[in-house]
């Protein structure tokens, strides 16, 4: 069973992914800010991380950078959710080490496809 960590501060968006993955075999763990995201990832060693770009305490980009720098989490693929705010966001996500990125508002269907690509459901 694969574990997916979703780092997002908005309850409704976490609920979408929770319900989206509820019908699948993925186990979902959640974190609501960047720092919590990094510590949870270190503790739980998920198979995939979905990281919102804008988070309290520590930005999604910075959290991604830290996870990619740490040897125990460096191999975990990360999907960065950008908000198309400014040009260059996508490039920044790539530079930070994201395996893929999705722009908000994303289609749950599309996200699920992406999750299955990066961490196949065994």
């Amino acid at each position, binding site marked *: 069973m694969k574990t997916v960590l979703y780092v997002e501060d*908005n309850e*409704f*968006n976490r*609920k*979408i992914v929770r*319900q*989206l993955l509820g*019908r699948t075999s993925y186990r979902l763990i959640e974190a609501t800010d960047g720092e919590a995201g990094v510590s949870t990832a270190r503790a739980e060693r998920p198979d995939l991380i979905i990281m919102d*770009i*804008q988070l309290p305490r520590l930005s999604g980009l910075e959290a991604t950078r830290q996870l990619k720098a740490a040897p125990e989490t460096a191999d975990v693929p990360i999907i960065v959710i950008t*908000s*198309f*705010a*400014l*040009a*260059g966001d996508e490039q920044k996500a790539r530079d930070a080490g994201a395996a893929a990125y999705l722009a*908000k*508002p*994303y*289609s*749950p*269907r599309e996200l699920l496809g992406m999750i299955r690509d990066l961490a196949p459901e065994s």
Partner: protein
Amino acid sequence: MGERIARLVLAYSPLGALVRRVARVRASVHSKLLAAFLLIALLLIALGVTSLESIAGVARQSRLLDQARERVDAMRQIEHAFGLQMNFMRNALALRDDASIESIFRENNRFHDTFNRLEDSAGPSQRDAIRSIRRTQDQVMATVARIAALIRDDKADEAMDLHLSEGYPLYREIATQVTRAVREEEAGMGRIREGVEATYRRALLLTGGFAAASIVLALGLGFVISWSFILPVREAEGFLGEVAKGDFGGSIEVPNRDEFGSLARQMNEMSRELHQLYDEQRRAAHQLRALNAQLEQASRAKSDFLASMSHELRTPMNAILGFTEMIRDGLYGEIPPDIQEPVGDIHTCGKQLLGLINNVLDLSKIEAGHMELAPSEYVVEDVVNTIKLSLRALAASKGLELVTTVVPDLPLCLGDGKRITQCLMNLAGNALKFTAEGRVEIRVEQEGEHLRFAVADTGIGIPADQIEHIFEEFRQADATVTRDFGGTGLGLAITKKLVELHGGRIWVQSEPGKGSTFFFTIPVRVTQEAPA
């Protein structure tokens, strides 16, 4: 060299003080020059008068000398006449004839004529000597008359005695007197000659002195006057040099109270004005820099605000669209038929709201200068097919024909494909929106270095007086258009700005009731990012 000498003279001689004093004289340059020339001219006139006077003096003395020489000649004639008379007397005494006596009287008459001439031209001192000679001559004539009477009476011995005792001594005395007079006259001539020489020497000294004084004065005046003009000009030269180098606010100090003085005053005035202007400009530049910094800060703030607004708006949109999509996908089970339509409406309106948010954010980004193109290679057919796929359903639902034509063999293009798609989508979407029947045609051609996109419709068209405003924000051809057709009026404004960002241009041809054709061009290869 000359320059250094002039500087030394100015620094160490009283001429320097004189130069400053002349400069301070409150008179025009013209008057100063005139005064200097008049002074030199007066000196030359004085020189001329002195020379003339000297010449006149020499001439006068020469005339006196001539007269004296004439008198000496006359004296010599008198001496000669006496000699003849003595001779005649000797003849008369030896021959005892009357004729010799007559000759004596004849000589005496000539003697008198000469005497008269002498007396006219002689000076007072010589006149006494001449009178005394004449008196003695008169005595001689009386004696000669007596001797003549004795000879006629044949008293030769008595006559001889009388001659020896009276006549001869008288003759001797006359000879002595004449000799003395001649000597005196010659002494006078010597004096006159000396006088002439003295006069000549004096004239020479006087003329030379005047000439030398004139030269010295002319040189001195020339030096003083010219340096009283040169010094302020030099000052002005240095001053203007500094002004030319951009060193404003200096001033020029000249003692002159003439045209140069007023020139210096005006230059100082100019310098003050320039300095003031320079200060103002510097202040303005400083303010501008401060303003610029503020603007940059404001721009950063706006950029931060845009980023957070975009995120804040998209986060709830994500939930709305995400949940509706999952409902429609049957994630929560099958949707009851009577709820299918409202769920579809929520989804449609959610998409519209998202489109609106995207447009507003795009426009804000463009205006804040934060819109950056992401150029990469793209294929025009792909762009057109994306549009066709997206809009096919809308066209079909309105019963409109959607035709796309892309000329074959277009090269691989370089540009922000997503943004170009957005532009074409805006135009084609508008065309479908404003066309009730007929067709919408998208056509792409190459024109030299540019691609030309054209979107033609058979819709309501745009009135001529509104064409020029059609690309402004929140403008649609008619306020009622918004009511009838919906839309925010942002699409064209964004399209125009994106096209221009690519270095292209956009325009429209339209006829109300017949339709519109929108054109825009994009460089085949966007080589550099055009300024936002």
